[in-house]
């Protein structure tokens, strides 16, 4: 029994890792395609049918490109940087519930790698480490553009983490738990958190853009100013790892947003569907499988949104970014906490 679960967990973790890699790989493809479509172009279409092999071509090329370590760079840290970025990005998807429980025979399998009761803090902790990859890489490159990028990344991530955490607290007040699984379970059917937390979601969304360094917050790598920012000096697969990490981060953040605000794997009328089956096990499994699909649909919708915004908006300037984070988002998040607290009190006052 225990060993079955252990093996299952191992397989599941591998699968999640594989899926996030796959999604990250194909995110590059979708980014290019979506950018092209938005810009009235057709995008990559010559590598394989509809250009579907484009990411493989990129990966293959990056693997076999010359490894280049600048002479003045700090070698150890130069290699460590992308490693940290990749590792941290890959770690963070462990606590996300991608689905409910599958029941096979007697055993029920949770579709979550590790269900810790501080899931959200875990993600928060891991994500907050992601910036080290950028900072160390940027600093070790011994290039001024990289250094500027690293410094921007550091200050940006720290500033927006605060607002992000504050906007989260409102959700936690509603759910009363730090476990993502519990938060997901609470939003059955159409009872999603977004209806109670529109402002909180907005703040979280903006912070998510900032944390993943996407436009309009892509200052650490803004092409027009810093060439490549922190990854200016990187070539071959080390660059690939940075790019991977960025896309995995988008994936994870999308998953977190779906879980926290958009009901994770829950979808409207799921209870009706579940009850429509005579066999509760079958009903449960069908709903779970649909739930997984729904979860991924939500994630993809968010990924699309990320790219859509990326190709629409101009980026902020450094000081404006800071101002937005500290002067607008943090007060707003605090206001949101107060409002939520007041709301909960009122609700309890009138219902009890």
């Amino acid at each position, binding site marked *: 029994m225990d060993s079955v679960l252990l093996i299952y967990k191992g397989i599941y973790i591998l699968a999640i890792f594989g899926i996030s890699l796959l999604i990250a790989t194909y995110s590059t493809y979708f980014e290019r395609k*979506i950018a092209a479509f*938005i*810009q*009235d*172009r*057709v995008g990559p*279409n010559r590598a394989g049918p509809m250009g579907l092999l484009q990411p493989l071509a990129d990966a293959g090329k990056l693997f076999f490109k010359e490894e280049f370590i600048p002479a003045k760079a700090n070698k150890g840290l130069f290699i460590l940087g992308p490693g940290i970025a990749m590792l941290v990005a890959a770690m963070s998807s462990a606590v996300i519930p991608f689905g409910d429980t599958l029941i096979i025979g007697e055993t029920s399998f949770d579709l979550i790698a590790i269900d810790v009761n501080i899931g959200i803090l875990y993600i928060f902790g891991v994500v907050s480490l992601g910036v080290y990859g950028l900072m160390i890489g940027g600093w070790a490159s011994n290039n001024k553009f990289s250094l500027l990028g690293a410094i921007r990344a550091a200050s940006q991530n720290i500033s927006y983490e605060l607002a992000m955490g504050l906007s989260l607290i409102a959700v936690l007040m509603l759910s009363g738990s730090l476990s993502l699984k519990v938060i997901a379970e609470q939003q059955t059917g159409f009872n999603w958190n977004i209806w109670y937390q529109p402002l909180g979601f907005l703040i979280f969304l903006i912070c998510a853009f900032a944390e993943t360094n996407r436009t309009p917050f892509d200052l650490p790598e803004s092409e027009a100013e810093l060439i490549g920012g922190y990854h200016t000096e990187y070539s071959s697969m080390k660059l690939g790892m940075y790019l991977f990490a960025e896309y995995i981060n988008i994936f994870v953040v999308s998953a977190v947003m779906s879980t926290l605000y958009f009901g994770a794997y829950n979808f409207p009328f799921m209870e009706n569907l579940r009850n429509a089956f005579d066999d509760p096990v079958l009903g449960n499994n069908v709903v779970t499988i649909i739930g997984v699909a729904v979860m991924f649909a939500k994630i993809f919708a968010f990924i699309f949104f990320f790219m*859509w915004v990326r190709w*629409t908006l101009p980026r902020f300037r450094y000081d404006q970014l800071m101002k937005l984070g500290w002067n607008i988002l943090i007060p707003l998040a605090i206001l949101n906490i107060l409002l939520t607290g007041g709301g909960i009190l009122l609700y309890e006052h009138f219902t009890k």
Partner: protein
Amino acid sequence: MTLSERMYLPAIAQGLGITLKHFFKKKATINYPEETRQRSDVWRGLHVLKRDENGAERCTACGLCAVACPAEAITMTAGERKKGEEHLYREEKYAVTYEINMLRCIFCGLCEEACPKAAIFLQDDKLAPARYERDEFIYGKDRLVEPLKTTETK
């Protein structure tokens, strides 16, 4: 700024709306190697040395094109037409060698304009292709002169 502009969001939503509209628009791309974009009739493309209606070369090696060329890309040597070559060369003088350095050429069309015999012509349907070696860009008469229209190809 008005209040709505201060809020960031309305303008952002408007921008997103425009880009989404384009997402579903018909694409403007022309798949180049398979399809080609239509060029104007007067497009100044690759040079050709014309023949007259009898298949004789029009060029008389007067050198006006070489003088008119701001890039100094044209070189030629003139020769006297011998007896029995009337079907090859229209005038009494002709260009023994005629070379255009396509790398130097700026396709300004001044040579075409300068030619009093309407011999050199910049075609609208051909472009100078990219190549690997610098030497391949010296276009001699073998590549410049219009291929002879034989009866078979008619």
